[in-house]
């Protein structure tokens, strides 16, 4: 009986924590409960939630992906470059170039992610080291491509000014757009919608497909999975490609939102993504973690930041609070699992 309760708390503890935080913010923080503010929170967490979703795939296999933050920067500048390339705009038109830019963003992310996975799985090198290297390389490449300066809105003297700004505006419809919803003054943010759709898809893949089952099997017991005929290396590669693809998508949303791709975008985002995944219940030992958990983890961080923002608390304190929550989440996780040892 006691174990059942512990199980329940263990499984939904983060959800309870989110609800508790939400309720206290609703009670004590003026301006928190407004629909406008709540949709803003969703918008703000969307990039981190998408990265945390991809990260969850990797963490469940027992790996880690440190490269996603740099990848957001690298895929972002390539997206922005494609979007503002006079040549591409000339041949493909605004619509075509925008579509291509989106493909470039996601494709770059997925390709670099797949490379991470290939080296990790086939080269049998620790993912921490592999993705640490990729993190450095991608950041350097982003700065190299841009010369260290953001690629963004064209100067008015630019010959292709109209086309370039039209393309940036087209992408802004994705990254900064809002869908009108009755009762919601400013509408529902498109990135939040994309985030929700992605998390739902991720949850489906993890729980209902063979690939998803294999991911849990590898994280749970890689040797048993291999002996059962699971193509361990290919599945790992897939997990890292998904994480990279999510980073590419996050990059597109950021570029669209800001109408510019900066080489330093996404700095330290990998740590926020890991934090969200872990708070959401993913275990760095592998085998445990869910897509919805990643979302809940990102929301928890988002609600906390928003509440403290509204209270006028310094951002330094917000960082300290976030760290405390991570520590608490992991300690809590260990506590709920302890009950299983003598089962």
């Amino acid at each position, binding site marked *: 009986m006691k174990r059942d309760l512990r199980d329940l708390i263990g499984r939904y503890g983060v959800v309870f924590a989110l609800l508790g935080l939400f309720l206290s913010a609703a009670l004590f923080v003026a301006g928190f409960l407004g629909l406008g503010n709540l949709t803003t929170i969703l918008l703000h967490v969307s990039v981190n939630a998408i990265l945390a979703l991809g990260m969850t795939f990797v963490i469940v296999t027992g790996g880690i992906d440190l490269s996603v933050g740099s990848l957001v920067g690298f895929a972002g500048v390539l997206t922005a470059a494609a979007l503002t390339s006079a040549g591409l705009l000339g041949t493909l038109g605004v619509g075509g170039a925008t579509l291509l830019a989106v493909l470039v963003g996601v494709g770059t992310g997925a390709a670099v992610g797949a490379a991470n996975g290939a080296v990790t799985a086939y080269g049998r090198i620790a993912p921490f080291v592999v993705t640490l290297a990729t993190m450095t390389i991608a950041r350097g490449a982003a700065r190299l491509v841009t010369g260290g300066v953001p690629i963004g809105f064209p100067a008015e003297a630019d010959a292709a000014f109209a086309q370039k700004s039209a393309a940036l505006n087209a992408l802004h419809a994705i990254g900064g757009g809002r869908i009108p919803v009755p009762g919601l003054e400013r509408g529902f943010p498109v990135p939040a919608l994309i985030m929700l759709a992605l998390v739902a898809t991720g949850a489906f893949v993890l729980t209902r*497909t063979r690939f998803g089952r294999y991911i849990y099997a590898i994280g749970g017991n890689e040797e048993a999975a291999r*002996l059962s005929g699971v193509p361990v290396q290919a599945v790992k590669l897939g997990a890292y490609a998904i994480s990279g693809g999510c980073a590419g998508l996050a990059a597109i949303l950021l570029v669209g939102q800001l109408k510019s791709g900066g080489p330093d975008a996404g700095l330290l985002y990998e740590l926020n993504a890991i934090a969200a995944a872990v708070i959401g219940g993913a275990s760095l030992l592998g085998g445990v973690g869910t897509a919805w958990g990643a979302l809940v983890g990102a929301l928890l961080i988002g609600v906390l930041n928003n509440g403290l923002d509204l209270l006028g608390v310094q951002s330094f304190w917000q960082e300290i609070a976030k760290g405390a929550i991570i520590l608490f989440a992991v300690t809590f996780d260990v506590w709920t699992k302890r009950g299983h040892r003598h089962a």
Partner: protein
Amino acid sequence: MQTDRKRRTETQGALHWRVSLLALSAVTKRYPGVTALDAVDLAIAAGEVHAVVGENGAGKSTLLNLIAGADRPDAGEIRWDGVPVTFASPRDALRRGITVIYQELALVPTLGADANIFLGMERTRHGLLDGATMRAAAAKALGELGLHIDPALPVSRLSVAQRQLVELARALVRDARLVALDEPTATLTAHEVAHLAARIDWLTTQGIAVVFVSHRLEEVRRLASRITVLRDGRRVWTGATIDVDEPALIRHMVGRDVAYVRHPAGRIPDPAPVLAVRGLTRAPAFHDVSFSLRPGEIVGVAGLVGAGRSEMARTLAGIDLWAAGDVTLAGAPYRPRTPRDAIARGVAYLPEDRQRDGLVLRFKVRENVTLPVLRRFVRGGRIQHVEEVRAARVATTAVDLRPAPPDVERPTTALSGGNQQKVVIAKWLLTDARVIVFDEPTRGVDVGAKVELHRQIRSLADLGKAVLLISSELPELLALADRVLVMRAGRIAGELSGDAFTAERVMALAVEVP
């Protein structure tokens, strides 16, 4: 006079008891599902070399753990120097003068021999490590053991035999009074064994007692002055080496009270083999292994730990590659590169350590059972839950997973060892394997579950599967196998069937008796 003498003889046991350096009396150790040691007595005097022999699983390692302080007995008494003691930890036993040297040597490979020898008892001067003193003391101890090396050399650069001497040197530096060695010669060459034997002799002249665990009877007889034989957790014989010959030792090791019911075969094996193995080699684990396996037949593989049985089976399962050899499966050439290949061709391997290699413990029973065949239940990219559950139910019912009807949504961790093994069998039942290789299928399960698993294995053969059964438990092979291959030191030492298939013959082939 005569009564006096008689009394002396009568009290000799008690006398010996009193002078024993280490004495275990009626020591019992139980683990979940198995009594590892059952009221075992063991007395060891200073300066003697005492060998503990027995089959795999006889309780030798458990005995060693009790001596090392790594584990504590559930009942019985341990006396050290005549005083009852409880070793709280390995550190406690060490402090009292007991050093245990395991087969897996406990050295830090990146550190020097000197640093390893003084690990945990470093000499200091003014609070700083006194390297010079330690190096000199290490060199002296190593020299006494006949190892003349630079003591600062990292242990990773030393051979296995040299590392063993480093561990012995550690015992010397600690002023150990008793040294216990676990299978000390298993990985040594003949020359190295001779050197070790000489050093062990020298230790005894220093008044140090030596206990060693082995199943190499020839070396046991060469090194030990007294021998204790364990079988199924009981002490069955103790005596002087000169009082016993090898055949007698073997009889003590295998003669037993319990035998399993032999499950009669439900069918005659097909005449044509499904698996034919010729000259299979993967040095240094095994060489030139040849045999064939027919549908409906159970072929046992006997041998001591380290004989190369699992290594051989792993290549057939595609886990490791063989270097040379020729294998045909159902008439076609067979050379799996991955477990996936092997499964696709219908070869299933049930690993020895099911928790480590056979199951995802976090998974539910259903998820474990369907893992190799998940593809079957996928439609439109989605696992069809209902079909998956149905298949898992069929398979777990077939292996009689208890409690019936099987609950396939239970977490695998909640099952007993015997039931976990049934889950593994159910999993491979679903793959429609033609050849099933069992590696120690009943290790760690209780007797009742063993009998049940035996029934399952026999019924697999009756379904027309070809079964290769690796087991270190002779009664299990006697109860199940139609014939048995005996491996010794990586080679097939012989094949026994019919009247020749007896425990004594198998053991004799396994330990090499002329």
